[in-house]
């Protein structure tokens, strides 16, 4: 299986992971420099999950994302310039500055939205899956979520509904072992989230989430199953969050050593090593990839910085699609 991956696909996975890493490393810097308002949650170290999964999706497939969603969104094909502009709160951002880091969406590439509410994407994913089924398309939906999210009620309702209706959904758990300050081993009544799948008569698979090839392979099976009308799959990818829960997190709940140890399992270095062994990643290619990415990210930052802030009154736009927009503006509000 892994062997059957084409060379350019493998390099593509590498490039995707590097783009996510570069984007978020830049965000980290910009946030520290007070250039990004609000709160930022980074997925550095977890890039293999989004990269592996998105590599088997089509442009019109859907994803629902989380508060830690830059990677999901980038991997699904969103434009880093409009993402960065959104993080800056600029009018050229995906949400015209109304959303920020926790609320990025790009409906044109199937991103149904990040979400500020943990597990908020589950019911939406079920609805999107039901919609695919009712419209008779072969689209699939990926519902990203964390280990912490797995204990919220909507997860249960969504998995049950997806199963009884055989909806084309991949429930993708990024198990990074913590939910904010809380270790999964404390909060969760089962050692592996995937062990809950039998309760919904769906396949439950746990993979090494730092091995992008393993993630991709498992996702491929799940997506094939979904497209074939056989229903949802629960895929759990074991990984680790390198940064704090949010930028600025004092992280008293874990040791530096634990973090350093986890960093040794860097999914990017790991794939790089594999590629080099297979002679797929020459020094020149690698330099070119990094250079292109740096240019792209710097371009995104430039775009964001040069874009204007929205005018205050724009806060009253985009509430309603229908003709009440006027009424709402004219009203007391």
């Amino acid at each position, binding site marked *: 299986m892994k062997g059957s991956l084409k060379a350019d696909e493998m390099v593509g996975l590498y490039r995707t992971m590097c783009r996510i890493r570069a984007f978020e490393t830049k965000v980290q810097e910009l946030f520290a420099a007070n250039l990004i308002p609000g709160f930022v949650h980074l997925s550095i170290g977890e890039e293999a999950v989004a990269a592996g999964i998105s590599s088997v999706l089509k442009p019109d497939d859907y994803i629902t994302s989380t508060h830690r969603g830059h990677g999901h969104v980038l991997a699904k094909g969103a434009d880093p310039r409009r993402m960065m502009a959104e993080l800056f709160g600029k009018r050229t951002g995906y949400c015209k500055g109304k959303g920020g880091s926790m609320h990025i969406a790009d409906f044109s590439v199937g991103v149904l939205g990040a979400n500020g509410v943990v597990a908020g994407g589950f019911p939406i994913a079920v609805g999107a899956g039901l919609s695919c089924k009712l419209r008779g398309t072969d689209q699939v939906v990926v519902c990203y979520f964390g280990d912490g999210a797995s204990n919220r009620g909507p997860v249960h309702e969504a998995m049950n509904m997806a199963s009884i209706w055989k909806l084309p959904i991949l429930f993708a758990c990024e198990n990074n072992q913590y939910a904010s300050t809380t270790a999964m081993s404390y909060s969760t009544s089962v050692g592996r989230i995937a062990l809950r799948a039998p309760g919904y008569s769906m396949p439950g698979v746990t993979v090494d989430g730092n091995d992008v090839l393993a993630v991709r392979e498992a996702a491929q099976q799940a997506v094939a199953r979904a497209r074939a009308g056989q229903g949802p799959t629960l895929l759990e990818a074991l990984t680790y969050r390198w940064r704090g829960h949010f930028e600025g997190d004092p992280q008293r709940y874990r040791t530096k050593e634990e973090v350093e140890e986890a960093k040794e399992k860097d999914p990017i270095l790991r794939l790089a090593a594999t590629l080099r062994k297979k002679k797929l990643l020459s020094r020149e290619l690698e330099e070119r990839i990094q250079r292109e990415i740096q240019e792209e990210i710097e371009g995104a930052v430039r775009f964001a910085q040069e874009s204007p802030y929205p005018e205050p009154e724009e806060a009253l736009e*985009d*509430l309603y699609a229908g003709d009440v927009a006027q009424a709402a503006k004219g009203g007391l*509000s």
Partner: protein
Amino acid sequence: MSLRELTNTEAMAEALKEEMSLDPSVFIVGEDLVAHGGIFGQFRGLPEAFPGRVIDTPISETCIAGAGLGAALTGMRPFVDLHFADFVTTAMDEIANQAAKIRYMFGGQVKVPMVIWAPDGAGLSAAAHHSQSLEAWFVHTPGLKVVSPCLPYDVKGLIKTAIRDDDPVVFFMHKKIFGHRGPVPEEEYLIPLGQADLKREGSDLAIITYSIMLLHAMEAAQELASEGVNAEVLDLRSLWPLDWEAIAKSVSKTHRVVVAHEACITGGMGAEIAARIQEELLDELDAPVVRVGARRVPHPFSPPLERFVIPGPHSVLEAARKVLEKQF
């Protein structure tokens, strides 16, 4: 226009039937819809007429409402039946944090054409978990539209419009009005959201109301008429958008106002209306706006208790008398 009499149940089913025939993206989803055509028969005939488009669910209101949203975001027009308005409590995140905000949070990228429908109201000894009227929560939630009509004509027209509307519409119908009959034209028609309807013209006082209280208000107005008082009854039908022009017109004409709903007075829709009337039209008032609504307790089970808690025609009458008394 040729007129027939339909019950609210029939008017609602007819509206859905028409919209489902016109638009294949409309579907109905909720608990216990298929076997009995909904708990009030409001979907009777539809499961057979539109196979696969009336969908029974597990008991999972959170996910039902959220699934409606997910479907709305991806090309469908869901009509979500929440079974009882009291159970919106289990789907508040999906309604108030997700459906209401998604278009705005995402900068207007997407439309959210969904209806969240639920029967509300008391009067059947259904007690604290099956009797509430919670519309005020949703009026206070930017991004939602809120509708609560009473008569079959309005129900049919507003169900059709709500389905065609591109924003999330929370649609309440009082559970005691399903059997209520009224004229409904055979011809197709729509009623815009945000348009009140003057159900009775008068000059001495205005009763501003909606949902089942319309019936109580009409009864009270008739009683007042027999006493020589000419009350006008304004049926809001939509609570958001709110037809402020119609309200202002009634206030400026009658100078005396009662606002009546079945929900708890404290913090109810009547507070918003009264506050706004005094804010914008204080000089027009010959007496304070008087609010009618339920007392601030949950709904008790026992009939004498429940009757005491919820307002009826007598409550509107009492409020009207109070409003008429005052001479500036």
